[in-house]
């Protein structure tokens, strides 16, 4: 029996492993950018299901609204007008949001035990009750996804609707997607399906169509089918080879044991030094000298009084 409703694979700021024995289904969401019409139904469903509402903003000269991810907007559509070599136009629309990395930078960076959880099905979830609001998850994320709420100072992002997945349903965005550009299922099935889409796209002249499942973060549980998999940057700067920043790896990797060892050594070294060498005390001669001087001065004072 487990306490939690989904098996946990990893939790933030925890040095011992979570129970690992049970093997559960690895899930994934596949976003077929070639079928996405940018209708934002996923955004609406996300807001509705998760009980979040962003502010009514302004138009800043693009269709992207809200114009960025926020603590109240866990997914946004990124619209890019790209001119092709033959004078044509492509309107590339990418649904942005948490990629649910197999090797999540946020979880690695998070200092609060249990604030970030990776379930054994691959979902990376934030537990705001444990979140301390430090923002290290933002520092750790290779995709610039988590956002701190101005209301409560906690970090929020897509949960892949862990509450729905836990009861056997698809995430709200995947269920709602009118064109089926968002699919949900086992990661294996998603990859199989992606292959059929890539074949179709290649037949339609997109020679570089491919799957975006970056190895640098151990693969992701949100994947893209891209018409131009060779240029992910066209899709609003999707990183080509994302990985946890080496800075973050150093910070949350080797630094920890080394620093602990160094500080431990310093403390223990001091202790043993004290034990072995004893204190550095004032020499007996000087003490005696000062004692004598004091005696002399006291005697002098008495005479002065008389």
């Amino acid at each position, binding site marked *: 029996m487990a*306490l*939690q*409703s*989904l098996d*946990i694979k990893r*939790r933030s*700021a*925890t040095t*011992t492993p979570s129970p690992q024995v049970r093997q559960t289904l690895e899930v994934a969401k596949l976003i077929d950018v070639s079928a996405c019409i940018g*209708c*934002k*139904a996923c*955004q*609406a*469903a996300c*807001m*509705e*299901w998760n009980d979040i*509402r962003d502010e009514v903003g302004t138009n800043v000269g693009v269709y992207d609204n809200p114009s960025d991810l926020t603590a109240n907007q866990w997914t946004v559509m990124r619209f890019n007008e790209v001119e092709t070599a033959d004078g044509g136009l492509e309107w590339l629309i990418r649904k942005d949001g948490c990629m649910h990395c197999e090797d999540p930078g946020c979880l690695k960076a998070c200092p609060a*035990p*249990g*604030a970030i*959880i990776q379930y054994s099905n691959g979902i990376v*979830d934030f*537990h705001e009750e*444990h979140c301390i609001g430090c923002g290290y998850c933002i520092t750790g994320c290779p995709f610039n996804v988590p956002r701190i709420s101005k209301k409560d100072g906690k970090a929020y992002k897509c*949960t892949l609707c*862990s*509450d*729905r*997945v*836990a*009861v056997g349903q698809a995430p*709200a965005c995947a*269920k*709602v*997607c*009118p064109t*089926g550009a968002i699919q949900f299922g086992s990661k294996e099935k998603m990859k199989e399906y992606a292959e059929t889409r890539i074949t179709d796209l290649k037949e339609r002249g997109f020679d570089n169509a491919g799957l975006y499942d970056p190895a640098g973060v151990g693969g992701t549980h949100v994947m893209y089918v891209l018409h131009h998999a060779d240029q992910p940057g066209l899709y609003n700067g999707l990183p080509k080879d994302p990985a946890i920043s080496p800075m973050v790896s150093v910070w949350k990797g080797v630094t920890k044991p080394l620093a602990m060892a160094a500080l431990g050594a310093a403390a223990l070294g001091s*202790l043993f030094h*004290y034990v072995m060498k*004893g*204190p550095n005390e004032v020499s007996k001669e000087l003490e005696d000298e000062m004692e004598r001087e004091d005696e002399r001065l006291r005697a002098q004072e008495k005479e002065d009084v008389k």
Partner: protein
Amino acid sequence: MNVSRRGFFKVCAAGMSGSSLVAMGFAPTAALAEVRQFKLAHTTETRNTCPYCSVSCGLLVYSVGDGAKNTKAKVIHIEGDPDHPVNRGTLCPKGAGLLDFISSPARLKYPEVREAGTNEWKRISWDEAYARITRLMKDDRDANFIEKNADGVTVNRWLSTGFLAASASPSEAGYITHKVVRNLGMLAFDNQARV
């Protein structure tokens, strides 16, 4: 501070045990993690149809309360009906936002009247609304109804009041509207089909 050698040992021991406690007793291994409670668990599910465009997607409307006498149903969530052969559970951004339509602050709650020349709404009862509206209708109909045209042909029409019918109300409402409106002799009668 004059710490004796013995005193120093005491401090060290305390420090050691303290950090051991930190490392073992208070160590954060038991931080609980559970997904959010599935919010539809015991809601009432009602089959409905999206009121927006004419794809007419199937909806599942979830409301709190189980229909017992002492509960008042309140819709808390709407999603696509997976059985529906057209939308198959999907919705568009409008359909996915329907919850906020039902609970929009712009929803009208009471009959109101804006009297001629004034600048505000005044709440009235349904009875008053019906009485005043039908009085205005009857006076206008009685005064302006055309039984025969200039050529003496029976035309039985009422042109001085018009009616613009809905586009999203059920067919049953449309039918009764047509029955009532045409029966009064109205011809200035139209719906949203043209726009």
